[in-house]
């Protein structure tokens, strides 16, 4: 039996920026998975009839659901952009440490811009 002490205080672990992109990719993936059945329900509402379409628009404008929409928008945008970065890494683009670090920063910067643009387009 391995008796080495395990020290896993999550608050004391300092993840590098590349690690943060990675774990956020995983968390956003799980959130998107959980959203799938609800997304299909919304698709159903959107196409069933004129009345259900109006109900969907009303539903999406509820303040309590706007927060949920922002979380899912972040999940989608982060998962997409971090995913593109991982594909580039598979293609051996940005695999050395400096490149990987700046790539990770680039993910967060692009992501912030896209979220601002899309939420501006959605809510204004």
């Amino acid at each position, binding site marked *: 039996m391995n008796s080495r002490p395990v020290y896993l205080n999550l608050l004391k672990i300092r993840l590098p920026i590349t690690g943060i992109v990675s774990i956020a990719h995983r968390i956003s*993936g799980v959130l998107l998975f959980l959203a*799938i*059945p609800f997304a299909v329900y919304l698709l*159903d509402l959107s*196409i069933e009839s004129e009345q259900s*379409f109006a109900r969907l628009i009303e539903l999406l404008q509820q303040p309590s659901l706007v927060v949920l929409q922002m979380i899912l928008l972040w999940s989608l945008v982060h998962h997409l952009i971090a995913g593109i970065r991982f594909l580039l890494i598979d293609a051996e683009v940005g695999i050395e440490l400096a490149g990987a670090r700046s790539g990770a920063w680039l993910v967060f910067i692009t992501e912030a811009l896209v979220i601002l643009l899309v939420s501006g387009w959605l809510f204004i």
Partner: protein
Amino acid sequence: MSLYVLEGLRPWVIQRVSAVYIVLFCLYTFFSLLSAGQFSYESWKDWLYHPFNTTVTGVFIIALLFHAWIGMRDIVLDYVKNIMLRIFILAMLMGVLIGSALWAFRILLLSVVS
């Protein structure tokens, strides 16, 4: 047959091919709807019922089904060590995904029939 269906290189490839398709589909849908102008029931219905859009959406559902399955499966294999719990959770995930995919296909195909 292996206990974990899709093990090794093949899921790795499927994950990436489906990822590329999903990115292209998202970009196409976003800009296509954006350029359609005023978003109304009629314009949305016309968009989804267009044969090309119905087809690419159908392929998207299949791509997402595989992509989400492989991703969630990897997470379960990483964190859940108990074999019975693993099988139970994987079966639940598979149920949610197949149920959602069938429901989405029903919505798409009803649009073709009607």
